[in-house]
C-alpha cells in the first residue's frame, strides 16, 4: 500500500513538473545579431560598451518571452567577435558573421575597420552599424552601412555655435591623438569652426595614445590662448588626463569633445577639474531618460557590475535592427527589404521621455537615410555627473 502510494506520488510529481516546465520546452526560434568591434587593448571600452549593451538588452528580451516579429516570439542571440581594432581581423570577423548567416551586425568601432569590412558586408548581404564617421561609408553607391551615432561633423557645429552664442567663444584650439579617427575628426572640426567664423589658433598638435604626461603636449597649445580647447576624438582613457593637465597648467577656458565619455571615469581621473567639460551623450541625463532606459541601466549594472555611460548611445543599434525587422518581417533575411523599410520606418523611442522617435536619418549629410536617429544630447560634467547642456536632432 505504502509502495503504491509512493509510485502514485512520484508519477503525479513527474507529470506536475513536466506541466510546469512545459513553456521551457517550447523554445523560441533564435534571431542572431552580430557584433564586430574592439573589446581588448587600449580601445576596449568602446567595443565592450557596445557588446554589453547588446547582451544586456538581449537577455532582457529573452527573459520576458522574446521579441515579437510578425506574431512569432524570437529569442535574440548576440554573436560577438573582437577585432582588436585591426582592420584585417575586422574583415575576418565579418566573414565569420557571413558564414553564420547573420545579416545584421553592429560595429566596427573605428574608421579603418569600418572601411575594411565594406566589401565583405556588401557581398554577403550584411547590414552593419559602424561607429565610424567617414562619409563615403554612408553615401551612394555604398548602401549597407548605417552610422550608429552622431558624427562629429554633425555635433561640432551645434556645440561651437552654442558656445559662440552663449559663452562668447572666439578662439578655438584642437588637439588630437595621432590616429586616424581623432585626426579626421580634428580636421573636420577645424574646418567647421572656420566656417562658423571662429579663429583656429592651434590645430597641429597631436599626441601618442600611450602618453603618460600631457604637460609638454598641451603647453604649446595653451600658449595660443584659446577660449575653447577641443579634444578631437578623445578616448575615455585620455580625456581625464588631458583635462587635468590643462587645468593644472592654469587653463581656465572651455574644454569639449564630440565623443561620448563616462562620468565615473572623468570623476576618478580628473575629479573637480573636469567640472565644465562638454561632451556628447545619449539619453543619459535623468530628465531625458525614460523608465525603460532606467531599467536598462539597472539590468546592465546588475549583469556586468558597473554601467558605462557610453552605452546611452550604444543601446540604440540593436533596438533599431529589431524594430525595423518587426516593422517588415521579410527583412529578417532580406536586407533589401530592410533598406526599403528604412525609408519610411518610424517608431516611438523607448529610451527617452516625450515623443521622440526611432527613425533613420542622414539625408542632409549622406544623401540617403543611412544613420540612426539618436538624440544629440550635449552634456556638461559637474561634480561626478553629466547635466544636459542642450538637446538637438540630426538631419
Amino acid at each position, binding site marked *: 500500500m505504502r509502495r503504491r502510494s509512493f509510485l502514485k506520488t512520484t508519477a503525479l510529481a513527474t507529470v506536475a513538473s513536466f506541466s510546469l516546465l512545459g513553456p521551457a520546452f517550447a523554445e523560441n526560434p533564435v534571431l542572431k545579431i552580430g557584433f564586430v568591434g574592439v573589446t581588448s587593448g*587600449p580601445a*576596449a*571600452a568602446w567595443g565592450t560598451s557596445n557588446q554589453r549593451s547588446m547582451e544586456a538588452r538581449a537577455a532582457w528580451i529573452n527573459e520576458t518571452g522574446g521579441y515579437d516579429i510578425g506574431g512569432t516570439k524570437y529569442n535574440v542571440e548576440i554573436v560577438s567577435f573582437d577585432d582588436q581594432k585591426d582592420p584585417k581581423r575586422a574583415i575576418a570577423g565579418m566573414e565569420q558573421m557571413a558564414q553564420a548567416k547573420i545579416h545584421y551586425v553592429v560595429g566596427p568601432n573605428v574608421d579603418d575597420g569600418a572601411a575594411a569590412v565594406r566589401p565583405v558586408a556588401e557581398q554577403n548581404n550584411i547590414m552593419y552599424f559602424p561607429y565610424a564617421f567617414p562619409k563615403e561609408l554612408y553615401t551612394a553607391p555604398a548602401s549597407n552601412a548605417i552610422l550608429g551615432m552622431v558624427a562629429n561633423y554633425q555635433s561640432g557645429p551645434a556645440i561651437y555655435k552654442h558656445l559662440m552664442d552663449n559663452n562668447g567663444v572666439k578662439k578655438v584650439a584642437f588637439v588630437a591623438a595621432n590616429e586616424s579617427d581623432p585626426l579626421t575628426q580634428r580636421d573636420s572640426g577645424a574646418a567647421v569652426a572656420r566656417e562658423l567664423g571662429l579663429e583656429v589658433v592651434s590645430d597641429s598638435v597631436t599626441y601618442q595614445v600611450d602618453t*603618460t604626461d600631457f604637460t*609638454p603636449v598641451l603647453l604649446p597649445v595653451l600658449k595660443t590662448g584659446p577660449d575653447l580647447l577641443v579634444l578631437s576624438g578623445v578616448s575615455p582613457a585620455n580625456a581625464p*588626463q588631458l583635462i587635468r593637465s590643462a587645468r*593644472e*597648467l592654469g587653463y581656465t577656458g572651455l574644454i569639449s569633445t564630440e565623443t561620448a565619455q563616462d562620468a565615473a571615469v572623468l570623476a*576618478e581621473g*580628473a575629479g573637480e577639474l573636469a567640472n565644465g567639460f562638454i561632451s556628447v551623450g545619449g539619453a543619459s541625463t535623468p530628465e531625458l531618460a525614460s523608465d525603460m532606459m532606467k531599467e536598462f541601466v539597472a539590468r546592465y549594472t546588475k549583469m556586468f557590475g558597473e554601467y558605462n555611460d557610453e552605452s546611452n548611445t550604444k543601446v540604440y543599434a540593436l533596438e533599431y535592427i529589431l524594430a525595423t525587422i518587426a516593422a517588415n518581417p521579410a527583412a529578417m533575411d532580406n536586407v533589401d527589404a530592410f533598406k526599403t523599410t528604412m525609408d519610411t520606418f518610424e517608431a516611438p523611442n523607448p529610451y527617452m521621455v516625450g515623443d521622440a522617435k526611432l527613425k533613420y536619418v542622414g539625408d542632409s549629410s549622406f544623401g540617403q537615410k543611412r544613420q540612426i536617429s539618436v538624440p544629440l544630447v550635449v552634456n556638461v560634467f559637474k561634480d561626478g555627473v553629466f547635466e544636459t547642456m542642450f538637446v538637438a536632432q540630426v538631419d
Partner: protein
Amino acid sequence: MEQILANGLYLGAQYALIALGLTLIFSLMNVLNFAHGQMYVFGGFVTYTVVAQWGLPFVVGLVASALILAVMGALIEVFLFRPVIRKSKRDESTMLLAAGIAFFLDAAILLLFGEKQRGVPKIVNGVFNWDFRLIMPYDRILIFVLAIALIVGFIALMQYSKTGRAMRALAQDRMAAQLMGVDVDRYSMIGFALGAMLAGLVGGLLVTITGINLGMGGPTSIKAFLMIMIGGAGVISGAIAGGFILGMMESVGLTVLAVYGDITYLVIFASLMVFLAFRPQGLMGKPWG
C-alpha cells in the same frame, strides 16, 4: 626651458623605475620579460582597488601593489620560467613564454578590473607655479621624489645587501656564482619578484597621475625596452640613464617638434636605430653580453 627640463626629469624618473625591473630580470635570467608592462598595469589596478574602491590610504595601496606583484613575480619564476629554462636551451622559449604571460595578464586584467580607464583622487592638491616659467602640480613633485627615493633604495639594496651582492654575482657570471655557493634558484626567484614588484610600484605611483587602463601594458613594455636599449641591457646604471634620456628626449621633442606634428617618437626611433648601428650594446652595456 625650465619647464622642459622639469618635465624631462619627471618623465625620466618614472621611466627609469620601469626600466630597472625589466633590466634586473634580464641581467639575472637572460629573460626578456614582455609581460613587464602588464605587471605595471596590474600594480596600478591593485592600488586603484585598494584606494578608490576600498577607501584605504594611498600608502596601503602601494604596499599592496608591491606585495602582490612580488608574489606574482616569484610564482611566475618558480612555476613557469624555471622549468622552461631547465628544459630548453633556446632563448626564444622564454621569450614566447613571456609573451604568453603578457596575453594572459591582459585577459586576467580585463576580467578582474574591467575595460574602463581607472584613476584615484589626487593625493596632494595644488600646483607649484614659478611665474609661469615652471608649472608643476605638487602630486607630480611627490611622485618624482618617491621615484627617486625608490631608485636610490634599489641601488643601495643591490650595492650593500647580501641579496644584492648575490644577484650582482649572478648577473656577472651565473656559473661562477653557483660555484661560489650562491643559491641560483633562490636568487633568481627573488630577482624576478623584485623586478615585478618595481613594475607594480610604478603602476601604483602613476595611477594617481595618469590613471590606468587595460591597454597601457604593451606600450609600457615597448618604452621599457627602448630604455634598456639606450642604456644597455642588463646594466642597472644603464636602465637609469636610458630612462632619463628617453624622458628628456620626449619632453624636448614634444615642445620643439610640436609645430611639425607628432614626430617626436619618429625622431626618437630613428635616432635609436642610428645609435644602435654604432653602439649595439647601448651606452653602458658590454659588447660580449
